[in-house]
């Protein structure tokens, strides 16, 4: 039992700033990610306010363009990445029976790179200059297509902020990925072969390998763009003979794996929560692993489905269409596995499970609209419209964010020792679910009606007013959900019910420690015999290893 002595704020701060402990770093990542979630959420609210009615003038064109760019960039790089890497940081060592990550100091370095990269991006609001010299923040879209990003068309420094801040933050992600791969491959406890580690660990392993492959490509093109902008190079200079599609090919070679990098941890969270709250083992673990690895591989080969309208040859179009269809198969397998886990169970609808079920439902819809987009001739209508915006918000909000909330409500007791309030949690879920559907459902229809993406306003009498108004109302509904979340967290941190070691009656190793775990995680490193070590100890007459 650690002696809780009085320590002044300055030494507490010092402890956190200099820490290399995976748990503290994990918490820091997640806290930052959640703060940025609210910032990006405010940007989204402004976007929805502007788009609530046609020809609105709440935001100027320049400001709107900066807001949608920052909303996307923030959500992906400053919300998604830190939260998933933070969760991996916190739980991988605990789940595999290790004391820390393989390279603790590299871990800390990676966090601070992310931290300062994020600050640099937001400093652009003050320091940068946009497309027309007014707005400071980047305003070229989160995928920053050339040649819009050249100094000719983007004369201010806002694009440079985009490049450098994401380059720095990306380095941090790469370092964490190196750490995760090494930790998972070399620090599993006795008895934990690769096929006996929690499915969460498999998903994070594939995820980290994708990061190792995809992020360097982004770094390379960011360097090329910076060389163009600041040193007179011609990588994306059409006048010198460059091909703007080079940016797109290489960006999406990063960008598509990036979205799988974002969602795989969501799969991981839901794959841990669903069994515990159905009281059943995860159905089909071996094929889940195969599906995860397949997704990793195929994800590297579908990038040009973001480029179907660029005039590629029919053969190339057909290939990428086919590969995109193909990735639907292992993804579908996972959905079936989750449903099969629920089937025959005793489903407890605590908040983590509400979000997990919401995830399964919403992510499936997002996956199906993705299949529609893979049909190239349909994509020629739907690409670059609000249909796509609807699609990716279904997979990233209804998908990833719901999975994040599921994991958050599931593991908050372990991290803090306190339970979150169930009533507030349930209200949060229903507000978010309703608001989410109201905002992003209609977008599929406005896309079909011809509303392109990234427009600061739209003409009246084109059939778009109704859908946009619904979307904007949905945003307001969501505010209540997010507000309840904040209230719940702040209240529970101080007055939450004590959680104990294992409040959910779960089965993986992290639930065998105290809540929160001691700095060294385990007094003695465990040795396990099956995928659910705690099931084995709770059911000594009927352990898992007999059936695996």
């Amino acid at each position, binding site marked *: 039992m650690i002696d809780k002595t009085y320590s002044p704020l300055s030494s507490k701060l010092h402890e956190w700033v200099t820490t290399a402990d995976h748990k503290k770093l994990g918490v820091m990542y997640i806290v930052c990610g959640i703060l940025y979630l609210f910032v990006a959420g405010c940007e989204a609210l402004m976007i929805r306010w502007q788009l609530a009615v046609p020809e609105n003038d709440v935001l100027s064109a320049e400001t709107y363009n900066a807001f949608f760019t920052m909303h996307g960039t923030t959500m992906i790089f400053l919300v998604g990445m830190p939260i998933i890497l933070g969760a991996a940081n916190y739980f991988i060592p605990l789940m595999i029976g290790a004391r820390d990550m393989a390279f603790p100091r590299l871990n800390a370095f990676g966090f601070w790179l992310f931290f300062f990269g994020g600050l640099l991006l937001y400093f652009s609001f003050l320091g940068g200059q946009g497309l027309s010299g007014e707005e400071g923040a980047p305003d070229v879209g989160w995928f920053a297509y050339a040649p819009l990003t050249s100094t000719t068309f983007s004369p201010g420094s806002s694009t440079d902020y985009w490049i450098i801040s994401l380059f720095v933050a990306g380095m941090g992600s790469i370092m964490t990925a190196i750490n995760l791969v090494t930790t998972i491959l070399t620090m599993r406890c006795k008895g934990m072969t690769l096929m006996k580690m929690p499915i969460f660990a498999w998903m994070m392993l594939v995820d980290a390998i994708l990061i190792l492959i*995809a992020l360097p490509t982004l770094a390379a093109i960011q*360097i090329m763009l910076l060389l163009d902008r600041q040193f007179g190079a011609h990588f994306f200079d059409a006048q010198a003979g*460059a*091909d703007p599609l080079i940016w797109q090919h290489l960006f999406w070679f990063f960008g598509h794996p990036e979205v799988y990098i974002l969602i795989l941890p969501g799969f991981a969270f839901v794959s841990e929560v669903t069994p515990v709250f159905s009281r059943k083992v995860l159905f089909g673990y071996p094929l889940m692993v195969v599906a995860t690895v397949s997704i990793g591989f195929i994800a590297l080969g579908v990038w040009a489905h973001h480029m179907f309208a660029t005039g590629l040859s029919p053969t190339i179009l057909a290939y990428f269409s086919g590969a995109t269809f193909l990735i639907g198969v292992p993804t579908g397998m996972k959905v079936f596995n989750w449903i099969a886990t629920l089937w025959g169970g005793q489903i407890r609808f605590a908040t983590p499970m509400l979000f997990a079920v919401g995830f399964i439902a919403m992510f499936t819809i997002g996956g199906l609209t993705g299949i529609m987009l893979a049909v190239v001739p349909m994509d020629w209508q739907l690409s670059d419209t609000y249909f796509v915006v609807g699609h990716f918000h279904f997979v990233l909000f209804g998908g990833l964010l719901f999975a994040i909330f599921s994991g958050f409500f599931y593991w908050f007791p372990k991290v803090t020792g306190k339970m979150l309030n169930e009533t507030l949690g349930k209200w949060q879920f229903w507000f978010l679910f309703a608001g989410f559907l109201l905002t992003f459902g209609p977008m599929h229809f406005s896309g079909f009606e011809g509303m392109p993406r990234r427009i600061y306003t739209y003409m009246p009498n084109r059939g778009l007013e109704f859908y946009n108004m619904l979307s904007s109302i949905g945003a307001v509904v969501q505010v209540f959900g997010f507000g309840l979340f904040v209230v719940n967290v702040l209240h529970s941190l101080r007055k939450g019910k004590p959680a104990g070691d294992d409040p959910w009656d779960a089965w993986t190793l992290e639930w065998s420690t105290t809540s929160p775990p001691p700095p060294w995680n385990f007094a003695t490193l465990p040795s396990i*015999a099956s995928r659910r070590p705690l099931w*084995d100890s709770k059911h000594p007459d009927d352990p898992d290893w007999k059936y695996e």
Partner: protein
Amino acid sequence: MTSQPNSISVPKMLPHGHVGMMSVITTEIFFFASLIVVYLAYLGKSISGPTPEELLSIGLVSINTVALLASSVTIILALKALRSCNQKKFLAWLFVTVALGTWFLVGTAIEWTGLIGDAHFTLQTNLFGSTFYTLVGFHAFHVTFGVCALSFIWFCGFMGWVQKKHHQNIEYVSWYWHFVDTVWIAVFLVVYVIGR
């Protein structure tokens, strides 16, 4: 755990550094692959300005290449000496490795001085200029980093600070060095052989 199966399999774990360095090398592979892809995509596409055929001469660069590849051999010899605790031999071969790496860098500097000074060929000249200096430059940057690391190790060895527990890490640095050499083979083939 109260009940155990008859045998718990103990997975054989690789050392952290193995996986760590292989991960680093993986990221570098994709970084250089991106630069090489762009180089190849833009080959022959410059609208104006000099072409690889006109500017690049394979003679000097071949010598540099031999030097760099030889340094991969010498570093293996250095590690062999290290493992058999032959401090003098280790330092000698490591010194040669650093020297060969430096030769490569100096050779590159000479080539670039000619290109920039005499031919006025820079990053800004045309597509070829942009892709050439970026690809070769980043490789040279990685060589420089390797030379610095190896020099630091040499210095530590010279001061007698290197102990048995450092041997594995030194080997990881040698892996990085081998990787840098392998990238050069690819760059050399793409830029000086295929591209001309």
